[in-house]
């Protein structure tokens, strides 16, 4: 089905099942431990051996020699495969760093061997017995030091944000020079780790030249293609199954070493092999959100209207890598006639930088929305009013090009009202409660809405049951449930009558889970398949499909009523289709918006920040399931608090690696860090987006949160910190005098 004109009334608009806050259909499995994650599939292949991956102990250089004799002779060892045993493997289409093969070390903890043994303990032990002789080479590990060598680079995150290497509208420099009120500030955001709870894990089994991997991957079709490419075998010979993913956040978008080495280990050992990347290997072996240094300049008239805005970002990556697209939202968020955005990329020899939840916007808004707060302060304006004054209803770089929906102003107004914004002390440091300095902060949330082609197969059985199959993944987002809701609505059956099977590459290729496109796009694909199934049902029953209504397990047309299952016959009835998109996304700017409000208390003596209240008001199209959508948003808000207050991969600039590479050293928010969170979804349907009239929320929730926390800390203390995370050492010597 081609979606190239705005949606009109369709069966989804009945909203009998869609739009309801139903419990997740996979909830009983997840809460009882019965949902099978990749490493846990004891049933899928007999006689599974255990693999253990060894990572390189240097940041850059090459391996001169590896001695595996002791490891090979260790008890239970079935195979030892080292990176010297094969030439460098071809790279997957989505990979920047090479995953295995050859003597060259591109980054710390790059996989250099896999040991296969009868037990986990034996494999791990033997891996430690491999002797490696390295030849170290000097590397580029310091982003700031590499700034002079950085090159202007355009990029598309592939996740909805992107920018040209340099974009100019009007004359930024002249307008900025003339503006009576200006800000010129530089901010930094650190490298961050996805730190999803389930490590990358794979079970691999060969049958002749056919390979099956049970793995944990957000994008089944990409993973299959890139695994085949890396191993040098045809994609048709590979099956990838990923029905439950224990968190991804972008870290499992791409093929990683676990799948490659499980497959190679299984081939070498002649046995199915299961392996997981050890937690301490993950931060350096896989991908991370790259650090940025961002300069923002804003000029405004005394009336508060922005006349000039510039956002320049520097980030680093391995050779052939990409910049973090941190300037992307600045192209669209606020009005202003004279504009400049630019991205520079430095070559670094640290592990691969790549997408993490809202790549581009997450770090971009952490700085832009603090800059807006600083400007409001200089203008002596309320930061909510300053943002509202500079709202735009059209793409500021392309006047005349409208947003499909843009309710940022309502998000901010309604948020301010609900949060009690009027109780905020305009003067920083003006609100004290015992030992706590209390402050409120606001930030706009912005994230583009991407639509992706997505396919599904639906099967109707004689009992009126509907089964949906698609290679879509559920990474905690609620895909199982919203897909079931969609099929139930379309076919006029209760939710219990729908079974959903996901994540298998033998199912039709879906949008997958990334860039907050998954919910809207995958359900639109199910919509398309169900439309086809409705046609087929009508035809079987000999009624006109345009007149047929699908209600309560029945098909009704004129005075005819037939049970839905009757159309299935003994063999069942199957339909498959795919949603594809025309140029609506070009003609209209499709974005999602939020107003984020945060209240913090900062300990007047220690500088410790505690988040006390959080509210997000979101405008993101039709909300398919308010319960799981809210969870997406609170989860993202939580990650936003982490980015603001604690998350930072510490770079060892001499040896070139992330030092705090486990969950003890890389701090993420825990229960005690997170207060009750409120989320409000504005009533919105977006017929430009898809037949579902929905958009994404999973990343919108993080966009702006970090800045709202930072702005609240400033409001509480009067201290402006421009370097994330805002840890207490950065506040301590600047806190107001304790009375």
């Amino acid at each position, binding site marked *: 089905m081609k979606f190239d004109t705005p949606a009109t009334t369709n069966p989804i608009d009945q909203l009998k099942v869609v739009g309801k806050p139903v*419990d*997740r259909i*996979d*909830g*009983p*499995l*997840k*809460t*009882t*431990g*019965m*949902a*099978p*994650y990749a*490493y*846990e599939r*004891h049933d899928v292949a007999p006689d599974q051996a255990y693999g253990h991956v060894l990572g390189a102990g240097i940041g850059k250089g090459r391996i001169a020699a590896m001695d595996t004799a002791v490891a090979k002779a260790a008890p239970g060892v079935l195979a030892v495969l080292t990176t010297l045993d094969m030439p460098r493997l071809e790279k997957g289409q989505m990979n920047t760093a090479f995953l295995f093969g050859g003597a060259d070390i591109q980054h710390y903890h790059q996989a250099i061997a896999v040991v296969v043994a009868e*037990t*986990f*303990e*034996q494999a791990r*032990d033997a891996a430690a017995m491999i002797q490696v002789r390295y030849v170290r080479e000097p590397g580029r590990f310091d982003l700031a030091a590499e700034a002079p060598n950085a090159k202007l680079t355009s990029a598309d995150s592939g996740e909805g944000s992107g920018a040209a290497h340099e974009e100019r509208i009007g004359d930024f420099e002249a307008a900025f020079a003339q503006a009576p009120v200006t800000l010129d500030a530089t901010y930094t955001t650190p490298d961050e780790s*996805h730190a*999803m*709870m*389930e*490590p990358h894990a794979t079970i691999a089994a060969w049958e002749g030249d056919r390979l099956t991997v049970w793995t944990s991957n957000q994008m089944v079709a990409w993973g299959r293609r890139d695994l085949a490419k890396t191993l040098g075998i045809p994609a048709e010979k590979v099956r990838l199954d990923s029905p*439950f*993913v*224990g*968190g*991804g*956040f972008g870290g499992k978008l791409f093929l990683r070493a676990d799948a490659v080495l499980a497959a190679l280990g299984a081939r070498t050992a002649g046995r199915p092999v299961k392996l997981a990347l050890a*937690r301490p290997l993950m931060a350096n072996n896989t991908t991370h959100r790259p650090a940025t240094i961002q300069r923002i300049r804003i000029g405004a008239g005394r009336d508060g209207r922005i006349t000039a805005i510039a956002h320049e970002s520097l980030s680093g990556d391995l050779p052939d890598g990409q910049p973090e697209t941190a300037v992307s939202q600045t192209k669209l968020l606020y009005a202003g006639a004279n504009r400049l955005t630019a991205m520079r990329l430095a070559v670094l020899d640290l592990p691969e930088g790549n997408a993490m939840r809202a790549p581009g916007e997450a770090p971009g808004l952490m700085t832009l929305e603090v800059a807006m707060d600083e400007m409001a302060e200089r203008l002596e304006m309320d930061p909510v009013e300053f943002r509202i004054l500079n709202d735009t209803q059209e793409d500021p770089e392309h006047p005349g090009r409208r947003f499909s929906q843009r309710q940022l102003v309502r998000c901010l107004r309604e948020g301010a009202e609900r949060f009690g914004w009027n109780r905020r002390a305009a003067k920083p440091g003006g609100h004290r409660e015992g030992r706590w300095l209390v402050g409120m902060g606001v930030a706009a949330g912005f994230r583009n809405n991407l639509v992706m082609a997505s396919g599904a197969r639906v099967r109707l059985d004689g009992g009126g049951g509907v089964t949906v199959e698609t290679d879509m993944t559920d*990474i*905690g*987002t609620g895909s199982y449930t919203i897909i079931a809701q969609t099929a139930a609505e379309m076919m006029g059956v209760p939710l219990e009558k729908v079974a959903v099977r996901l994540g298998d590459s033998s199912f039709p290729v879906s949008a997958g889970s990334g860039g907050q496109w998954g919910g809207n796009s995958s359900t639109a694909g199910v919509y398309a398949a169900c439309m086809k199934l409705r046609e087929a049902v009508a035809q079987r029953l000999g009624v006109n499909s345009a007149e047929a209504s699908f209600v309560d397990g029945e098909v009704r047309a004129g005075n005819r009523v037939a049970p839905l299952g009757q159309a299935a016959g003994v063999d069942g009835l199957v339909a498959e289709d795919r949603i594809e998109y025309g140029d609506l996304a070009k003609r209209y700017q499709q974005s999602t918006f939020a107003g984020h409000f945060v209240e913090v208390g900062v300990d007047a003596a220690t500088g410790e920040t505690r988040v006390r209240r959080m509210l997000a008001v979101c405008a993101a199209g039709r909300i398919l399931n308010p*319960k*799981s959508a*809210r*969870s*997406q948003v*609170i*989860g*993202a*808000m*939580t*990650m936003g608090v982490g980015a603001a207050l604690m998350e930072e991969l510490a770079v060892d600039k001499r040896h070139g690696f992330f030092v705090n590479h*486990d*969950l*003890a050293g890389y701090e*993420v*928010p*825990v*229960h*005690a860090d*997170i*207060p*009750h*969170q409120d989320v409000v979804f504005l009533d919105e349907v977006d017929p430009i987006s898809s037949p579902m009239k929905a958009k994404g929320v999973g990343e919108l929730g993080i966009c702006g949160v970090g800045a709202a926390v930072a702005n609240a800390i400033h409001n509480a203390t009067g201290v402006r910190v421009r370097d994330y995370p805002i840890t207490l050492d950065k506040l301590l010597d600047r806190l107001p005098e304790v009375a």
Partner: protein
Amino acid sequence: MNGEVRDLAVDTRTTLLDALREHLQLTGSKKGCDHGQCGACTVMVDGRRIYSCLTLAVMHEGDEVTTIEGLGQPGNLHPMQAAFVKHDGYQCGYCTPGQICASVAMLEEIKAGMPSHATADLTAAPRLTPEEIRERMSGNICRCGAYSNIVDAITEVAGRQA
């Protein structure tokens, strides 16, 4: 093991977690870090919660181990499991069995009068406040960030119990 006697011969290096997951194929207990940093492997031993990755299986001969599988099953959910479903106290589900085991044991700790860092008066019975729950559950990381909902689920069950 969840009320049954199980005989196992394991490597002395095998953790309780791997004995569960690999030897008994009880994969409800999760391995998030294998280093006592995340709580995904939380089970109850003799009624007390424990990180099963930080203890060796051979140390538990004769102990009573309760895992998520022993609490309830689909169709027969433990009240805490049902509350997690109702409040959407999870997303990816990977930390969830650990959160549920921890919360069941944690409520018993409060009942037994064990204080926490959030307990203001160490001699009085600890109260069931959100602060107490958050403090006591902080050994169980949820990277999906379901905390707000998890606390709602626990609070509901605790209210029902009291």
